[in-house]
Structures are given as structure tokens and as C-alpha cells.
């Protein structure tokens, strides 16, 4: 039955990507070449601590590459999406499309 396939897909959904704040972070990073901590904080609307925590999760999953640097003696945390992160978000898009088509379509 089509609904079964949709349910199976839900079970396979990557929970690292599925979290709304992390999905927003990944989407912004997929749209740009690289961005810093302040940019993500402004766009995603998270507090400093929350963003830091979500970035650590994404970093541990290998989805983002985090580089610390100093620009004019000011610290800058530069973040970019890795190939694994790009694949993860594309896979997630496909899975969500399947779920919506199979269960709600």
C-alpha cells in the first residue's frame, strides 16, 4: 500500500536534519558559499547558546565545517556546508516529498 511506503520513509528520516532549527541552518548554508556565526544567529533567530549547540550537533554529524579565525583582532566563526551535509539535505528533501505524496497526496 502507498501509505506503508510513506510510513517507512518517515522512519528513515534523518533526525539530525529534521529538527527545524538545524534544517534552517542547513538551508541557509546550502544557499550561500559560507557564513559566520552572527549571520546564522540573525537569520535563524536562535540565541547564541542554542545556535552553538545545534552547530555542534551538525559538526559531529559531519554536515558542517567550522573554522575559527580572527579578522582585525575580532573572532569570527566561519561555517560552511560539507558535501555530506549537502547530500543529507537533498536526501531529506526527497524523503519529505515522498512522505507528503504518499500520505497526503
Amino acid at each position, binding site marked *: 500500500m502507498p501509505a506503508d511506503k510513506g510510513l517507512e520513509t518517515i522512519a528513515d528520516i534523518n533526525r539530525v536534519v529534521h529538527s527545524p532549527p538545524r534544517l534552517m541552518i542547513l*538551508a*541557509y548554508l*546550502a*544557499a*550561500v*558559499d*559560507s*557564513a*559566520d*556565526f*552572527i*549571520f*546564522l*544567529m*540573525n*537569520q535563524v533567530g536562535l540565541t*547564541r*547558546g542554542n*545556535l*552553538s*549547540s545545534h*552547530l*555542534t550537533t551538525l*559538526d559531529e554529524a559531519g554536515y558542517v565545517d*567550522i573554522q*575559527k579565525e580572527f579578522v*582585525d583582532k*575580532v*573572532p*569570527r*566563526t*566561519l*561555517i*560552511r*556546508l560539507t*558535501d555530506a551535509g*549537502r547530500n543529507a539535505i*537533498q536526501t531529506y*528533501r526527497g524523503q519529505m516529498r515522498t512522505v507528503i505524496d504518499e500520505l497526503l497526496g
Partner: protein
Amino acid sequence: MSTTKEFDTLKRKVYLAYHQDGILDLVAGSVVLGFGTFMLTDNIAFLMAGWFVMMMYVFLKNRITVPRFGYVRIDSEKKALMKSWISVGIGVLVLLLFFLLPIFLRREPTSPEMEAWIRRYHMVPLSTMLFGLPALGAAIFLGLKRFYLYALLAAGLPLLGAMLNIETYIPIVTTGAVIIAYGAFLLANFLKKYPLNTEGEDASG
């Protein structure tokens, strides 16, 4: 790393928000106002002051925009800028060919009527070339719609001024002042929306 097409809408949103700080308007307006003031006073310092502000663009972006909005690199931005400058160059050449070269290449002396016409309307192609085309390039290739209005002002006000027979510097000064005023309005909104933000020590590692 190239971005996928699916995220173009988000990229566009980020790009437009990054240029919503009014700094490009302020520097562009300063160049126009500097030129207009130079025409009024014959003092080249005003012309140079306008260009000096233009050269401060990257410095102002780094000092005002990046600490508030954050640093973001968009890979298509440089390509858009390159296209913009190429189109401006082509536009200037086309205008030169169609408006100015025929005048300079005339062998017979220019008639008094022609001279009067040139004196009256010379600012129209000049302002269009110097300010209208770069503004049009920014509007088309950077996607900044307000620059269509600036392009229209740069070409239209000198034409209106010539038709009304008013001093040639007045439309240029007015164009510069309008661009600066709108840039200041955008900057004020930007500063309000994005207060100063530094990373501190607890940024992610």
C-alpha cells in the same frame, strides 16, 4: 562550493538583505553629489571627495554591515558585479558612438543652432553615461530595484532641467541628494533592525 538551484530563492533573499544597508546608495549618491557640486563651484576637491567615499565602500561594509548582519559569502555576487561593469562599459561606448563622436567628427564648423542645442542638452548623455548606466547595471545585474529609479533620475532630471532651461548642476545635485537621502533612510532602518553584535567567546567550536 557551488549552491544548488533549489536554494536560489533563499540565496536571493540573503543577497538582497545584505544590500539593504543603504551603503551602496550612500557612496553612489556621494559620487553624483560630488560631481554636481564640482560643476557649481569648479572646485575639484568636491569631485575627489565623492570618489573618495566610493573607495571607502568595502571599508564601510566591513565596519557597519558585517558586525551587525554577519559575514556571508555568496558565490554568484562577483559574477553579477562583473556583468554589471561589462554592461556599463558597453553602454558607455554605445552612447559615445551615437551621441558624442558624430559631433566631434564633424568637418564643417558647427552651426550656432547646433552649438546652442549641445550647450543646452550636453548634460543629458553625460549624466546618463556617468550615473544612469552604472545605476541601470546595478539594477539589472545586482537585482537592486531602487537603482532603476536612480537611473531614471540620472537621465530624466538633466533632460527636464534642459527643457526648463535651469542651471545644469541643479539636476545632478538633486539626483545625488535624493540617492543619499534614501541611502540614509535605509541605513537607519538597517541599524535599527540589526544592532551591533560581536561573537564573544561562546560561539560554536
